């Protein structure tokens, strides 16, 4: 089938009770591609990336990661899913562990690394997100922006091939958004495959290879950013962009 795509979403549907969260959504993402997904709340954008890493289970359709299907109930998925990293809106750091322990837990338990090796890895990623001096602190002692950077570093410690971002700056105070976006821009520059659900259009213009607009569980528009921002095909997308870009 589509062997060129790193992630292949094929006619995926998902309902929550009576609510159709995803309605036959299809999307192909290549190695190194950076996709920004936007749309009004409840449009299914979070559900889409949560289905990709199986935090939610889709009911119909197929999701392939590098040609391997992921689906609820299939055996030996951990290996495939471990290629995906995820950053959450609410950070979801482990509050009872220090920053360093937050970072080394995955490498030590899931990747069976030695403690010293895991700590060296963790420190290198803390340096990359520019907060090595916070290694000994607990999450609650950090600002929101710092916590989110720790969360990004925690994901990177698993050395994923694909990073998923679920509104990573939506819970942050305005003055902290840029420090997180800077890290994401740097990551994009390193060639990481990324899917970002975000309304940060400045960021999107800067890094996106593909813009996706979702509404009512469907992909309404999918285009390169130049076309997406200047001349989108659908009126719903035009409306949406007008609303969020007005000021």
């Amino acid at each position, binding site marked *: 089938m589509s062997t060129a795509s790193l992630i292949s979403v094929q006619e995926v549907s998902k309902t929550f009770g009576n609510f159709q969260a995803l309605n036959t959504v299809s999307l192909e993402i290549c190695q190194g591609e950076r996709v920004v997904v936007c749309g009004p709340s409840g449009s299914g954008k979070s559900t889409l990336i949560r289905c990709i890493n199986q935090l939610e289970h889709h009911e119909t359709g197929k999701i392939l990661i590098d040609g391997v299907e992921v689906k609820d109930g299939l055996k030996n998925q951990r290996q495939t899913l471990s290629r995906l990293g995820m950053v959450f809106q609410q950070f979801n750091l482990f509050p009872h562990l220090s920053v360093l322990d937050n970072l080394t*837990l995955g490498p030590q*338990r899931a990747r069976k690394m030695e403690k010293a090796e895991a700590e060296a890895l963790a420190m290198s990623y803390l340096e990359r997100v520019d907060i090595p001096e916070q290694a000994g602190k607990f999450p609650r002692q950090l600002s929101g922006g710092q916590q989110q950077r720790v969360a990004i570093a925690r994901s990177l410690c698993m050395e994923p091939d694909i990073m998923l971002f679920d509104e990573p700056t939506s819970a942050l105070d305005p003055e902290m958004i840029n420090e997180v976006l800077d890290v994401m821009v740097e990551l994009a520059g390193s060639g990481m495959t990324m899917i970002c659900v975000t309304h940060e259009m400045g960021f999107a213009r800067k890094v996106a290879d593909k813009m996706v607009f979702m509404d009512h569980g469907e992909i309404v528009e999918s285009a390169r950013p130049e076309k997406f921002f200047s001349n989108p095909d659908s009126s719903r997308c035009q409306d949406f962009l007008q609303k969020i870009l007005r000021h």
Partner: protein
Amino acid sequence: MTRLLAITGFILFLSGCSGNWGWYVVNPTTKNGLSNLGFLLDGLYYTVLISLCAILISVVIGLLIALPGLSSKRRFRGINRTYVELVRAVPILVLILWVYYGLPQLAGISISVFWAGVLALALSDSAFEAEIFRAGIQSIDKGQYEAAHSISLNYTDTMRYVILPQAIRRILPALGNQLVYMLKMSSLVSIIGLQELTRRANELVVTEYRPLEIYTILVLEYLFLILIVSAGVRWLEKRMQTDVRH
């Protein structure tokens, strides 16, 4: 320290009351009184030992019973519900009698008074522990499971390193309550003849016939143990809070 002083003062106050008190029965300056007092205090050994063994076992059983209760599969939740409802419905005293007199006949084994007591107390308490653990684990934010999933932790590691350490901090006061409860309920094991505090007090009352003084000592013995447990739990809570605050 102030507590100890208060208790000592209370004893002195009681001994000062005239008329009905006959503290000679446990007066440590007389030979008979000293041996009586020693006899009563020796019961501390079994009371503490049986309570600790029972609470340890009941925490383990409770956790094992709590986990299926959190499952999304109905069958697993059914196991949890059935166990909790059945065990919770049996009075502890009845369970002690059943385990000591009934179980050996049923299973064709012999069981010592001590282990019959431990087993009965642990089983009875485990249903409550299961409910405490279930509530504690359910209070942990869903995002913690999702974060653990996103760094490829399996179920066991997620529970061991992410969920349980946080849950245990939250249920510590309730676990402390259960330990206090266990210390008190261990007095029921006196009925099958274990030489713990209550049994010894009962026996001494029969020979000395001074129930007021002997049972007052018994009350103070339990009070002493339970105040130690309360202080210990409070210390542990404080220590654990220093590294996490939600």
